[in-house]
């Protein structure tokens, strides 16, 4: 997508969003003690956002949009998406097997996926970093980390 289409798409979405917010905020009207109730700010911001989005679309149509957009690297984007999935799996795993084990697995999985070649580096980093974070958060700062179901 070139910058023109992106700006039109984003502007259109924000126009829609600002209308939705304005209408939804209407239900808070009258809950305050004066005319500047809880609906005042969201609604005035929604109006401003609507205007700004329309200007954004108009500028894009008139060709004022910035031309030089960075291109997203396709394989890179897929890589980032997979890493996000690994992170989500980690968050779920943590609640089953507990923080420490999940963290070791998470770090190892990430580095393996990113093609860190040395097995030794992967293993040692995973274990040491997990231990350090666990010691700092759990033992020193006493932040409750998920213990898992065991």
């Amino acid at each position: 997508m070139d910058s023109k289409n992106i700006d039109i798409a984003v502007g259109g979405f924000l126009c829609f969003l600002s209308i939705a917010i304005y209408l939804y905020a209407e239900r808070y009207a009258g809950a305050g003690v004066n005319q500047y109730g809880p609906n005042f700010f969201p609604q005035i911001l929604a109006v401003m956002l609507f205007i700004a989005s329309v200007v954004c679309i108009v500028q894009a149509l008139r060709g004022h949009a910035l031309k030089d957009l960075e291109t997203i690297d396709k394989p890179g984007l897929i890589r980032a998406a997979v890493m996000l999935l690994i992170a989500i799996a980690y968050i779920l795993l943590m609640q089953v097997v507990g923080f420490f084990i999940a963290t070791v697995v998470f770090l190892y999985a990430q580095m393996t996926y990113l093609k860190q070649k040395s097995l030794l580096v992967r293993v040692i980093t995973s274990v040491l970093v997990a231990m350090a974070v666990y010691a700092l958060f759990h033992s020193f700062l006493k932040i409750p980390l998920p213990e898992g179901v065991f």
Partner: protein
Amino acid sequence: MSIMYLLEAFQTIFSDLSSLMFILIGVVAGIMVGCLPGLTATMGCALLIPFTFSLPPVQGLLMLMGIFTGAIYGGSIAAILIRTPGTPAAAATLLDGFPLSKRGEAGKAIGIATIASFVGGTIGALIMSFMAPQIAQFGLRFGPPEFFALAVFGLSMIISISGESLLKGVIAALVGLLITTIGFDPLSGVPRFAFGNDNLLGGITFIPALIGLFGFAQVFRNIEKMGIVPQVRSKVSRILPSFKEVKTLLPTMFKSGGIGSVTGSVPGLGCDIAAFIAYGEAKRTSKKPETFGQGALEGIAAPEAANNGATGGAMIPMLTLGVPGDAVTAVLLGALTIHGFQPGPLLFRDHPEIVYPIFAGMILCQLVLLGVGLAGARLFAKLINIDIKVLTSIIFLLCIVGSYSMRFSFFDVGLALGIGVVAYFMSYAKFPVSPILLALILGPMAEQNMRRAMMLSNDDLSIFVTRPISATFLFLAVLMAGLSYMKYKKLREIERKVAETTAQDAVAK
């Protein structure tokens, strides 16, 4: 008279070297906490209060103040190295710190941040020691209209940090402001945009949003670019800034330190707002405003001097009025009461044996910070020389744990990841992220105080211009917006001409 007390306090501290040791421990622990995204100065102090139970009150407090100072400084290290402010106070530092780091000059950036923190912090500590009562009275003159005017003044800085497209900066800020309206409205008791979700009732928590906007977005970018863009390595030769560079920055540091101290002393404003105000001011008065955002040294010196200056400033209302200047001093206030001292107007009269060591300790904290920071800068700067595959994995982990540990909530982790994905794509569509951050900081302040002022005046808008402080800030906001807008236009003009000439050159060739 207070000088005598102060000297006496220094004597007390030096007579027992263990006090110095506790300052050192505090500062180092603070830097560690501050470095880690998600662990803020507030949390650092709160989590370590139990350790001070067993210590004599003065030493316990010195350690906590060490943590405070260290953490506010430490936040900048993460901001510079991994584009994730370790604490909100360092949010303005990343605007110029990270570009420098990308050029391999992380050491220099950290060095300047250290020196600026020292200068600003010392100014703050001195102002606190000698002018506390007067400053406290000034802070009290801020009522709802003044806070609103100040928030508007702060928001006028959006122009300064919008980058290439002002319109997109404004859109980003509006979205940020709308985000702050999510959650329970303390003025009317109405839950807004919570959709029955308890987690949303409290609003979007600031720290996970911060980690998402910067930390996760940067992690995704690193992963995407891995293998395409070569890894940045710190230049080992030029690790610290030269004396000459520091000398030219000194005026900025002094001014920003002063701005920071005064801002911090107004109850309700914190180190983060102080840093942004100083950044905007430095950019406005700079001879080369176009370098801001590209790695300008002033752009690091100003916010760092201001946020550490604000640490001293924030202590002022806490000690003299018993009203905390910000969240961290609220924790320190709690610590003082647990140790049996009630901060407030009577503290100076009843307990000079604790007040003056606090002043002396604050000054000593800055010296220790300078030593530790400069010694550590070389080490910190080399951190980004770790293999990027390993480093990215670790940063990813720290961002996840950091967004969790604010409230021990997986909802916050999910939220931060979601914001991270949005922020990642935003930068491709050329929407700047920093205005959202500024909006998140200033939004609640603007909204609540505007409505509060309207309640005070019975819907009479003239309250904003008939009160001197409020009128001044609103005037400054308009002035600053106007001036920055003109500068911004001029800059874009120059850029366009440059672009045209290069294009013509290309055609000519």
